[in-house]
């Protein structure tokens, strides 16, 4: 089980979702992935993508730089 990071800043939706999807495909169940985005739409889209595809969102929020941070646990 390992932790990974993905920089999806400056990308507009749906690119952050696509990048997260492609990264998750490389990971094993139980791995975690922290995605950093600047498009606020990612706050809706990445969790929706996770719900659909059976991954868990451990944390989602916005930091003081208005970056969206989402931590995903890869489903089985």
């Amino acid at each position, binding site marked *: 089980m390992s932790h990974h990071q993905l920089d999806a800043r400056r990308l*507009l939706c*749906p690119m952050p979702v*696509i990048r997260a*999807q492609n990264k998750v495909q490389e990971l094993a169940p139980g791995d975690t992935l922290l995605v950093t985005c600047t498009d*606020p739409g990612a706050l809706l889209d990445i969790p*929706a993508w996770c719900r*659909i595809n059976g991954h868990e969102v451990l944390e989602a929020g916005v930091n003081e730089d208005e970056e969206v941070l989402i931590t995903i646990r890869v489903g089985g």
Partner: protein
Amino acid sequence: MGFRRRFSAIITGPFSESKRPTHRPMSTQRKAVSLISGGLDSMLATQAMLDQGIHVEGINFFTGFCVEGHTHAIRKRDKAKPKRNNALWVAEQLGIKLHIIDVIDEYKDVVLNPKHGYGSNLNPCLDCKCFMVRKAHEWIEQHGFDFIITGEVVGQRPMSQRRDTMPVIQRESGAEDRLLRPLCAKILPPTLPEREGWVDREKLFDFSGRGRKPQIALAKKMGIEDFAQPAGGCCFLTDAAYSSKLADLWQARGERRYEIDDIMLLKVGRHLRPRPHFKLIVGREEGENRFLEGYRKQFTHLYTTSHPGPLVLLDGEADSEDLQLAARLAARFSQGKNADTVRVELHEKGAEQRELDVVPLTNDEIPVEWYL
């Protein structure tokens, strides 16, 4: 919302013995991939397949021109309520997986060299549909799926959904009769899934034409109450203003090509071309300015410092006279538009930054033809 979710069910014949094509046992659940656009039609087509016990997963192609999401994300006034991605939302309502595929690079050839030409703007709809079904066909071959479904309806769109173009899509995509359009299947020749009995043709539909009534009625019957209303096309290429900006870009460059940054920037800001050899992109509000800031390194850019104003990117080549004009335009779009002089900071690509004191252009000095 009263929507019924369907989960996997096992399909059990009846298969015609003589035509059983495959190695799979009869009870194997058949799998289809559905082209999900986010609109109602693909939603209905998918639900119809789920209702017949087919395992369906969605596929959505991101070409760079899709209307989904991003312009809303850029503009500040929409920020409090970011727009949902309709394809994801539809998939969630249907209870299916969705695969979003980045086809930005491959799609360029579709836009630049459409074999079947363009629609009323720079929308190459027929080539686009062939391309998407071809990609979906490649996908089903890689993933062991049996067929492809779309929400197409005969006669619904002037270019890609005509009776005579429907077979073109089947042929040129390579999907042939593994492409099923549940909403109008009954008025088209039977496809493989129908002939093999994977899908009951009798339970499919015979919709045609531009009317939306049958779709709305079917949605009601299926318990689908909330759906995105179709607005012309599914991408910016059907938009006249967008297409004319794209055509201008090609003309100014003397060649037809684009990068993803080009097509993104066409969605943002006011675009003015005061001279054939350069254009200006002027942020309209804070969200756009912030987005344009990401491009500062790549472009000569300017902004007013004596008054609040937009960030302006200059795309092309500009001599000192042109830069003066650009500064006067930047001043025009700032809060100092009525001031005697406005100070503008100019960051010329590959040069030291400098300041210019300029007289803002008046409205009358900006010909409408400058606006793209």
